[in-house]
């Protein structure tokens, strides 16, 4: 079976069934601050939360939070063990969107290098979680105003990289199987599924077309000349200083970004030994490139923001063959300086064209 229809109620039963022997996270609406429109993940306890929100755009939290923890002890020494003793609980993540799956391609290359890239170092902590996590992705049924996936080569619906994908249609979802892992999530669930009708398929295509058009429409004003994998953002210091004017270097964009992979190792003594903890890091902080003795290859904020944006387009392209900005818009959502990355890229490219 490649795809099936699952009614809204039956999906809830299916999710509850998954939660019997796995951790399951689903997107729900939180009525706090101004975030009514942006769902975020909540664990399923006994039944599916009332505020389940499977429509709209991507949840605030990105899959990296589940696969590459913001903070994790990676070694205890002296006398550290040669093998990483890791065994993450089996987890089902319902709700990542196409932009999130695109970002996982970079995660796979960086942290599961022997399988997805040409380098030799495999990260046991990531691979363990990745292998034990089931990704149940969703088509976007609407775009938030900061979404721009179609500007960077993406689509607002997943085409690959998922175990199961859900496409909202009248009364429920088309569930598409993307992997043997996904297939296993549906084992024994035949009673909850029904055949997909031609009408369902038409509705899915209509929805996909209309969201794609909405994303295109709202980004028409951000004219970025040429395809994103051809960007050359090397520009004058003045052009980057102008973009950085409202940046305070807080690094919220790094943390909200689904494809930022950088980390810092922090060593601390404990009562009995010493612990090495891996924490997410931000390339916008002044200490990021600092070396012993105080040298710093990127001492100014404009240099650091330039590095961040060029990393997403040029450096990732040259190293991994990927544009790693996935157009999810989260960096815009969280920026307290209201820097819009689309506008930043547009203005740098425009300045270059003039020069």
């Amino acid at each position, binding site marked *: 079976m490649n795809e099936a229809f699952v009614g809204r109620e039956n999906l809830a039963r299916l999710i509850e069934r998954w939660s019997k022997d796995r951790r399951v996270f689903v997107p729900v609406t939180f009525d706090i601050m101004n975030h009514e429109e942006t769902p975020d993940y909540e664990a399923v306890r006994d039944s599916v939360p009332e505020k389940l929100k499977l429509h709209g755009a991507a949840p605030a939290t990105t899959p990296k939070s589940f696969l590459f923890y913001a903070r994790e002890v*990676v070694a205890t*020494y002296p006398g*550290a063990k*040669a093998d990483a003793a*890791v065994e993450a609980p089996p987890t089902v993540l319902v709700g990542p969107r196409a932009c999130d799956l695109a970002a996982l391609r970079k995660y796979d290359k960086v942290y599961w290098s022997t399988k997805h890239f040409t380098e030799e170092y495999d990260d046991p902590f990531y691979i363990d979680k990745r292998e034990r996590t089931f990704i149940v992705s969703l088509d976007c049924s609407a775009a938030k105003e900061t979404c721009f996936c179609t500007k960077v080569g993406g689509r607002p619906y997943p085409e690959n990289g998922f175990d199961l994908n859900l496409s909202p249609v009248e009364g429920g979802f088309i569930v598409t199987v993307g992997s043997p892992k996904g297939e296993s999530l549906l084992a024994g669930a035949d009673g909850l599924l029904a055949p997909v009708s031609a009408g369902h398929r038409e509705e899915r295509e209509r929805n996909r077309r209309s969201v794609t058009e909405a994303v295109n429409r709202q980004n028409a004003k951000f004219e970025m000349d040429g395809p994103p994998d051809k960007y050359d953002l090397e520009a004058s210091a003045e052009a980057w200083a102008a973009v950085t004017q409202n940046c305070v270097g807080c690094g919220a964009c790094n943390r909200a970004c689904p494809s930022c992979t950088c980390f810092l190792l922090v060593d601390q003594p404990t009562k009995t030994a010493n612990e090495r903890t891996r924490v997410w890091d931000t390339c916008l902080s002044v200490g990021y*490139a600092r070396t*012993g*003795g105080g040298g710093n*290859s990127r001492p100014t904020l404009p240099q650091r923001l330039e590095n961040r944006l060029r990393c997403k387009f040029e450096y990732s392209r040259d190293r991994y063959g990927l544009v790693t900005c996935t157009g999810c818009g989260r960096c815009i959502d969280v920026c307290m300086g209201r820097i819009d990355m689309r506008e930043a890229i547009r203005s740098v490219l425009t300045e270059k064209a003039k020069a």
Partner: protein
Amino acid sequence: MKNLYRPIDGVIEHIKKETPAITTYRFRPKEPLTFEAGQFVELTVPGAGEAPFTPSSNPNVKDTLEVTIMRVGTVTAALETMKVGDTVGLRGPYGKGYDLKSFAGKEILIVGGGVGLAPLRSLILALFDEIDKYKKISIRYGARTPDDIVYKDLLPQWAKMKNTEVQLTIDAPHPDWKGTVGVITVLLENTPFDMKTAAAFVCGPPIMLKFVNIKLLEKGWDPNHIYHSMERNMSCGLGKCGHCMMGEYYVCKDGPVLTAAQVAKFEDPF
């Protein structure tokens, strides 16, 4: 699966003060840890943190390794409080080693500044092991003052090796100094080398790399044969954490030594 972040235990076997701020430590790793000239290791001072160092000892010595370290920050300051017999952590080796075979039959120029001679020492000792293979080895070394010169006991021995010369300079006149005075580039005025084939290995503070690079290129040195030890924050050593990124390069994986040709596209690579 192998834990990439695990330091193996290493015991401090010997400590030698080179200058007031620079010390050479010899470590005996409790598990095998060997390296090639040009590669580096991550040294953990328990509880204080980890920092990258290129060993200064001969890579052909397999059971111990030495690192010559200047006190500049928290990790190096914490290391100074440790004694013979204490345990540190070691990870590695990381980065690319030199392809020594490719230098056979060629002239070799080694340019060091301050503690920058330390990583070059592992290269020098590896070259000495097969000294007949190389046409000439010229070591040019600059320090701030006579007191800041490292390996004071070794330099005269090196100068006596076959086809080898050692030239020294200090930055400013000093009552105890009879030799050349001036920054390292004064030792590069006279370079009777075949610039098209000779290899230059440069290590020192970033400002020194910058001016040595300019000087050698001016003289017509082939940028593919100028090897710079890049000063970057190589934290994980695995090409993952991002701190040493330089454009699409991870200095810890693609380096730590990059050629003048590789860094030419950067406005100010040092």
